[in-house]
């Protein structure tokens, strides 16, 4: 298994480690998932996300390459803006979901999921052969500092982030990258740095009484309460952004066609109407309903499945995301768990309000 630059810190902090996307990652620390989750919502949580993939695309046709791979107008993306988007396949299915930041007019940073690393790199490299551009995969440390106190912690360390808006980024020094983004629904930052500087930076953040290390367990419950998709569960290459409820990430002008892979399929599917959609579901009662549970209607017909589910510590109850047939939500919905039918209520997303700094 691969190690991130913080492997030693995780071990010395008493983390319970586990495999994720080929990396030995911290699942939780002695604080435990519940308290780690609540600490992030009330103070500041530090996450090791160094397993994620950083790729820089440079060159005179860098923007055209991105516009071929992703359904947005990269040529007109403001400098320093971070944008949520996708690689789509010919069927408009999602190869991966990403954040792309325009660093300079001919330089873009793509941050993608660790579990999709090989296919993402292959995909972008195949496009780099067509466009005058260069792709570099950058190995580095990547940390997320999330929560209402994240800003003050960074300001105390001398980072001028107070005026940095949500979904914008800066490069504070050579080899570093800092964006006001995250995966928790809270205000916060994602900070990349050279591998050899990562542990010292993490230690500096942890000197603050407001900061606790947070593992993948709470990362999952935080993003689930925030209604954010997890690739491989809520999203995969058979799901379109339209079905996933992510059409907001595609400009209106590109929904009827565009230069990107999958444009025709997307336009056709939007015109035909989607047959299934992603929704928030609240299991009635206290029992968590987890990913993979079948969704059925009153007569027991299969109407979809739970794609993510668990217990929401801030919501104080079980929460789930499901992919369900369009016409199935106007009648009672049940999830099948261990032979029992658990009534599910449709719940608006997010389960816990976002706390972004706009």
């Amino acid at each position: 298994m691969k190690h991130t630059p913080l492997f030693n810190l995780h071990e010395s902090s008493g983390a319970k480690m586990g495999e994720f996307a080929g990396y030995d990652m911290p699942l939780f620390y002695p604080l435990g998932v519940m308290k780690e989750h609540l600490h992030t919502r009330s103070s500041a949580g530090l996450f090791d996300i160094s397993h994620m993939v950083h790729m820089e695309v440079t060159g005179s046709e860098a923007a055209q390459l991105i516009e071929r791979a992703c359904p947005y107008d990269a040529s007109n993306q403001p400098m320093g803006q971070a944008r949520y988007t996708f690689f789509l396949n010919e069927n408009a299915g999602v190869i991966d979901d990403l954040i792309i930041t325009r660093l300079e007019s001919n330089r873009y940073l793509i941050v993608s999921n660790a579990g999709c690393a090989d296919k993402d790199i292959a995909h972008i490299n195949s496009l780099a052969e067509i466009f005058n551009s260069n792709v570099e995969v950058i190995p580095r440390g990547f940390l997320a500092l999330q929560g209402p106190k994240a800003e003050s912690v960074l300001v105390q360390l001398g980072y001028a982030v107070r005026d940095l808006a949500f979904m914008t980024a800066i490069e504070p020094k050579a080899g570093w990258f800092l964006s006001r983004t995250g995966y928790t629904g809270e205000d916060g930052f994602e900070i990349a740095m050279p591998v050899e500087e990562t542990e010292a930076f993490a230690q500096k953040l942890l000197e603050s009484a407001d900061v606790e290390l947070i593992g993948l367990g709470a990362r999952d419950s935080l993003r689930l309460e925030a209604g954010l998709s997890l690739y491989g569960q809520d999203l995969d290459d058979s799901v379109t952004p339209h079905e996933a409820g992510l059409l907001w990430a595609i400009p209106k002008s590109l929904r009827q066609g565009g230069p990107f892979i999958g444009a025709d399929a997307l336009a056709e599917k939007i015109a035909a109407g989607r047959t299934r959609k992603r929704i928030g579901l609240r299991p009635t009662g206290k029992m968590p309903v987890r990913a993979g549970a079948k969704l059925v209607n009153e007569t027991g017909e299969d109407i979809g499945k739970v794609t993510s589910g668990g217990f929401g510590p801030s919501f104080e109850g079980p929460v789930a995301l499901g992919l369900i047939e369009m016409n199935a939500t106007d009648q009672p919905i049940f999830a099948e768990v261990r032979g029992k039918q658990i009534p599910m209520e449709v719940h608006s997303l997010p389960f816990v309000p976002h706390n972004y700094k706009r």
Partner: protein
Amino acid sequence: MSKTYYTEEHEWLTVDGDEATVGITNHAQDQLGDIVFVELPDVDDEVEQGGDTVVIESVKAASDVYAPVSGTITEVNSALDEEPAMVNAGAETDGWLYKMKISNAEELSELMDLDAYKELIG
């Protein structure tokens, strides 16, 4: 005079005559993390040694609890419906799961005593 036995699946049972009280060990609750739901059996359910009897849902995952011996459920700890975290706070005391009438006392010989269990968890 009661006696407490332990299983390799980290359950404990305290036996008094043919009655037993069953729970998970403190080591097990520590491994599971924050417990948010306990699905208990019904009174009068018949269980077989090694069969799924209880499901404990932690923040992380669902875990099966197996019957340490065969028998019939006589009582469940319904306080766990409201306070599942009692299993974290007192896995071997207030956080017991159910009581049962043992149908085959010979199965007890396959279980561990405290010393053997301590050796198992290291």
